[in-house]
């Protein structure tokens, strides 16, 4: 049963229920639109890097500082243009049982991660600060572990899509208790 959906820029959010053995299973999906430009740019980046490296290693007679620098710049170039082929990331909430985090790629590969409900201390909305930007992320605080577990490992969806997922996770982990940030 479809509960809600909306889009924002390159992300789409969808929330629906599935029938489970005893209770309904909530599924929250966040889709990322495939960008042909980014795919082409990533191939261009790899081609430039390979051409540069081959030139430095095979054509030039000896390796100098400039060739190391050009290889290093090539690596940075590839890293910037790298395109993550993620189709969607899902959060499957099975009440009283656990939460499954899934990452689906365009190639068909799927990565699953299951977290038992008792292991989750609290889901939190974090503000992450980097040297150049600041963005929101949703993470799970786990009992007995120092590190937070990111719910969406590859994608950086906008906060308006993170809030309903966070509320659903709070409801699943706390039962009747209301969530406060």
């Amino acid at each position, binding site marked *: 049963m479809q509960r809600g959906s909306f889009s924002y820029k390159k992300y789409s959010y969808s929330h629906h229920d599935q029938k489970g053995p005893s209770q309904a299973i909530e599924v929250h999906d966040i889709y990322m639109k495939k960008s042909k430009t980014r795919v082409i740019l990533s191939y261009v980046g790899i081609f430039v890097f390979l051409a540069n490296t081959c030139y430095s290693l095979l054509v030039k007679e000896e390796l100098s500082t400039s060739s190391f620098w050009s290889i290093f710049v090539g690596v940075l170039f590839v890293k910037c243009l790298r395109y993550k082929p993620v189709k969607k990331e899902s959060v499957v909430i099975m009440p009283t049982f656990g939460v499954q985090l899934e990452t689906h790629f365009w190639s068909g590969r799927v990565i699953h991660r299951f977290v038992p409900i008792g292991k989750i201390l609290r889901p939190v909305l974090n*503000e992450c*600060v980097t040297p150049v*930007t*600041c963005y929101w992320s949703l993470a799970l605080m786990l009992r007995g572990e120092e590190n937070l577990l990111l719910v969406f490992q590859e994608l950086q969806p906008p906060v308006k899509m993170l809030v309903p997922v966070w509320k659903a996770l709070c409801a699943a982990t706390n039962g009747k208790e209301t*969530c406060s940030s």
Partner: protein
Amino acid sequence: MDKRRRHRILMVSDFFYPNFGGVENHIYYLSQCLLKLGHKVVVVTHAYGKRSGVRYMTGGLKVYYVPWRPFIMQNTLPTFYLTLPILRNIIVREKITVVHGHQAFSTLCHEALMHARTMGYKVVFTDHSLYGFADVGSIHMNKVLQFTLADVDQAICVSHTSKENTVLRSGILPEKVFVIPNAVDTAMFTPAPNRLSCDEIVIVVISRLVYRKGADLLVEVIPEVCRLFSNVRFIVGGDGPKRVRLEEMREKYSLQDRVDMLGAVPHAQVRSVLISGHIFLNSSLTEAFCIAILEAASCGLLTVSTRVGGVPEVLPDDMIVLAEPAPGDMVWAIRKAIFMLPSIDPHVMHLHMKSLYSWHDVAKRTEIVYDRALQSSEKNLLQRLPRYLKCGAWAGKLFCLVMIVNFLLLRLLALWQPVESIEEVPDMLSVQHQDEVMEHDFS
């Protein structure tokens, strides 16, 4: 009655907690009082060790520890333009209206004010220290200050002496500079419940033992006072490169039982050290203001200080004895203070300090500065560039070039990450209303 305008202030400085000092305290106390007045305050500083990201302090004070590493004396590496993306992001997401920079020595402050002006926001700058004019470091610092203050809306100085110093160094119009002295937390610095006996007089010194703070003067003054007055004892708190000289002085004149060296005193224990004394001795060679003597006066101690910088403006004559920064004059001042002691009542002094200095008063006066800043006219880049040209024959043109490049980079950044794509942050609210409002504010 006009409704008071609610400001959203961004305090920027390299100096904030967990680092400890006058500027850090000033920013914290001012922010807390502004929050009480109903404004929104966000602080931006660089990361301290592993402390990086967003933290909330008392009263909902949000602090961004931006992961730029400090490179010298707690300052962020001056990159000119690399801080533009993160500062723009923070200013837009927090819906800031005024950017307030602190301390001329902070590179992050200068960069933030430059970017804020380029983005068209109102900026206010507070200068906390006095600087020289003659040495190479001061000359460069003053040029940087001239650049920042060429286009600032309002400036604040902590004393009239500091205002004169800032105006001379930077060439800013005196009408744009407000004088708002620092204050002291009189609730924390209270006198001892029972008055100390005057049989043995204790003189307290708490300062960093460096040249600037007059540690060399102490080395001359302490033995002379101990020789003249047999019932006087000294307590010296603080650490620094000059501590060795003081230890040597103790050894030379055999004053181990009359001079206690405590080492570095954490700020939480300063009050307990102060209330064990009758007189507070400050021997600084330069001071824009001096919060240390405010703390001492709030604890009921009579102050003896050098007449430098803004110190004469801090306390009334019945609470302080001033002297020239020379050993003979300081010994005379201590003698005068010892004779004044019987007439001093610490509790009366404390109550007087409470009426004179309060951070709430500082916040109200700062609010007036923000109101004045927001009233100043909007100017585009072409109208602002002539202000930079006045800074010097070569410097003026360089500054104009820096601002033009900053403007172009801002436009590029606006194409890469438009303002609409930066998500605004909802304000911290009380727990009861959070759930209902969250849905609304995030959409």
